[in-house]
């Protein structure tokens, strides 16, 4: 028992431990080792964006009114005074111009959403290209894919709430996509909108989904995602002293607490600068939603761009039989995203079948050492990127003074041709890089140096077994300052 003169920390710890226990577990957590590589921070950036989204979102929810009731604007933004608009749009304008710190909070919230999805996708790319999804991490990969889907959905729900011209157009397209689902489409649409589009309930429902339902699920899944990271411990890149049965890096306490905590403040800082200085989603320019109007160059937020591009590139085909039909938007709007995410969910199992191994893997592979896998990934990213570019086909046509038809036909062709080309080039590059790693043939015949000059000099072909042998046989372990572990 601590004497009254013991440090405050020790006294607090003892008070808690007598009620909760778990000193050993807490110490183990403090001692958790984080591999020190920038690419491991991408997921953290996504996590911090979520924290900032929740904080700014709580503030915004205190002032936002999700109502379609019509009011006449009488706030401080001159050009809209006297204009009839929904209460939702009016309150968003009020937050922007009449709530102190409202504008900066709204814009940080929007920017954080954009960076959130970007960070998730960058994190996903890192996991994919280094094989971090392999056993035992398949479940965590699937949770991650689910988080990506939910982040995109919640972003869409969020910017659809404001009831400006752009968001109304987006909702109408979403309704068309729902309607296109065979057999149940009209039912789902009617249940979502409480009757025909747009109805009076949709904003209230989107609001509940956006601020409660989806964020709660995201929060729970993030908790499970992190719990599994602690359970599995981090993966690590191959290198001296790194084995399948250890993790090398820096401990959570104190070094990584400072680094990760500092990263949170840096992410928040960049988002604050964007939120204050870079205008985003200027709803006072687009104006309130009018069903009969649409502004040209309507663009969704960037992460929905690929679905928008899919709708644009789709040739005018649909299926009709016996008087029934599967309308055109179903294929790019429902079927294609289902296939894309379906393959993503299944990828760990496809990969393990392809690799004919179901071993536990904790050492990552380098993309160049798996040319086919890397090529497939590059092809998939190219495919989605071409679709995303197509989401701006009209802007491209206007900017470069070419016809929209020419842009669409070019991108339709690119969608079919570019992914295989990009995949083949990537795979070829991987093979070349492997060759360069191996050096000239005469040098490659020699055994690798016993003590690589730095931890970043990887062995020529770091298949797990080889890396293992190398690190065990070398003096690398003695060069690594190891800490005693209980």
């Amino acid at each position, binding site marked *: 028992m601590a004497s009254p003169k013991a440090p405050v920390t020790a006294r607090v710890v003892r008070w808690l431990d007598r009620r909760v226990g778990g000193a050993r577990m807490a110490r183990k957590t403090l001692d958790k080792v984080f591999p020190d590589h920038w690419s491991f921070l991408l997921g953290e950036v996504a996590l911090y964006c979520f924290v900032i989204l929740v904080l700014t979102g709580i503030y915004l929810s205190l002032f936002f009114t999700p109502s379609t009731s019509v009011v006449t604007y009488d706030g401080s933004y001159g050009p809209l005074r006297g204009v009839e608009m929904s209460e939702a749009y009016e309150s968003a304008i009020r937050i922007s111009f009449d709530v102190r710190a409202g504008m900066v909070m709204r814009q940080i919230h929007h920017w954080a959403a954009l960076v959130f999805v970007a960070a998730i996708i960058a994190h996903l790319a890192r996991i994919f290209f280094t094989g971090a999804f392999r056993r035992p991490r398949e479940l965590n990969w699937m949770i991650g894919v689910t988080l990506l889907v939910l982040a995109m959905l919640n972003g869409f729900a969020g910017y659809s709430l404001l009831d400006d011209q752009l968001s109304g157009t987006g909702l109408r397209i979403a309704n068309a996509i729902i309607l296109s689902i065979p057999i149940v489409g009209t039912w789902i649409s009617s249940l979502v909108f409480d009757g025909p589009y747009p109805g009076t309930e949709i904003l209230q429902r989107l609001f509940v989904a956006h601020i409660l339902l989806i964020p709660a699920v995201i929060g729970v899944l993030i908790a499970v995602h992190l719990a599994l990271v602690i359970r599995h411990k981090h993966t690590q890149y191959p290198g001296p002293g790194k084995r399948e049965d250890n993790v090398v890096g820096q401990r959570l306490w104190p070094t990584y607490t400072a680094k990760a905590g500092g990263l949170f403040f840096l992410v928040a800082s960049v988002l604050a600068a964007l939120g204050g200085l870079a205008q985003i989603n200027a709803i006072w320019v687009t104006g309130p939603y009018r069903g009969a109007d649409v502004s040209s160059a309507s663009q969704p937020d960037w992460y929905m761009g690929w679905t928008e591009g899919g709708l644009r590139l789709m040739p005018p085909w*649909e299926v009709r039989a016996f008087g029934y039909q599967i309308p055109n938007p179903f294929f790019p709007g429902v079927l294609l995203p289902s296939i894309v995410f379906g393959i993503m969910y299944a990828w760990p199992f496809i990969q393990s079948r392809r690799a004919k191994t179901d071993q536990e893997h904790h050492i990552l592979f380098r993309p160049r050492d798996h040319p086919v896998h890397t090529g497939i990934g590059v092809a998939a990213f190219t495919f989605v990127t071409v679709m995303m570019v197509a989401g701006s086909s009209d802007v491209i046509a206007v900017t470069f003074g070419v016809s929209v038809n020419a842009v669409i036909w070019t991108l339709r062709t690119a969608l079919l041709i570019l992914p295989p080309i990009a995949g083949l080039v990537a795979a070829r590059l991987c093979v070349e890089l492997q060759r360069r790693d191996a050096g000239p043939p005469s040098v490659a015949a020699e055994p690798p140096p016993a003590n690589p000059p730095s931890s970043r000099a990887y062995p020529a072909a770091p298949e797990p077994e080889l890396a293992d042998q190398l690190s065990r046989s070398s003096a690398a372990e003695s060069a690594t300052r190891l800490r005693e572990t209980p």
Partner: protein
Amino acid sequence: MTEPASSAERKGPPAPTTHVPMVAFIVSIVAALGLTFVYWRGGQPQWEGALLCLALGGIGIGVISWAHRFLPAGPDEEPREQVASSDEALAALDADLIAGEEEFGRRRLLVRLLAGAAGALGLAALFPLRSLGPRPGAGLKASPFSTGDHLVTEQGTRVRPEDVAVDGFITVVPEGNTDDANAPTLLIHTRPGQNVPRSGREDWAVDDLVAYSKICTHAGCPVGLYQAESGLLLCPCHQSTFDVGDGSRPVFGPATRSLPQLPLTLDDDGYLVAGGEFSSPIGPGFWNQLR
């Protein structure tokens, strides 16, 4: 808790100083105080963003540069056990699970009834979902215009043929049904000879004026761009293009169905009225739209 610097570090550059983290924290303090001042003075988005950036960034840079300079850099090592449990542990778990399963299994009828009760409750629990909206009705196919409805502008004024010049177009809605999401309709004054009516629609135009639904048959966006010389309507959302002279047939983009046409005629006072209902259901397609 300071750890001795390794030999490599001792030979390196001189010992790090606290300058960078100190400056960063001071910048953060000043910026945060500045932020409270800006807020107190009424707030200004750009200043708020910039000062918040400095206040947060100062802490971030301060803490990270502190970590780089003074906190143990490792590398530390942690052992990693295999995730999967040992065969003995699994066997023990299996035994317990199977023993419990057998206990339940001894009362087969009860197991089946419990499963039935859970299934029935799950089914019953779905029914409140039905409260979310009505059965999708005929509304999806209903024409917003009925025979004899006056065409009015969005401001509510009735329209005469001479209100729309050649090559011009306006958006009209049915009088008395202006808020219907499917109501917006394009009234287009085509050039003489540009409009080639389909068979059965020869008398649907009034003085080269034709009316087509403004709601795109692809995804429901308002088809708002008209190229008069080619007589093409373009949807700004997904670039579906419709040939007005040919019954607004889709000629480019993802749309597959023509824009529904509204037959036009004049009332006794020379105002435009609907000569009937739209030629087909308005807006994007759905499963049983064509039945």
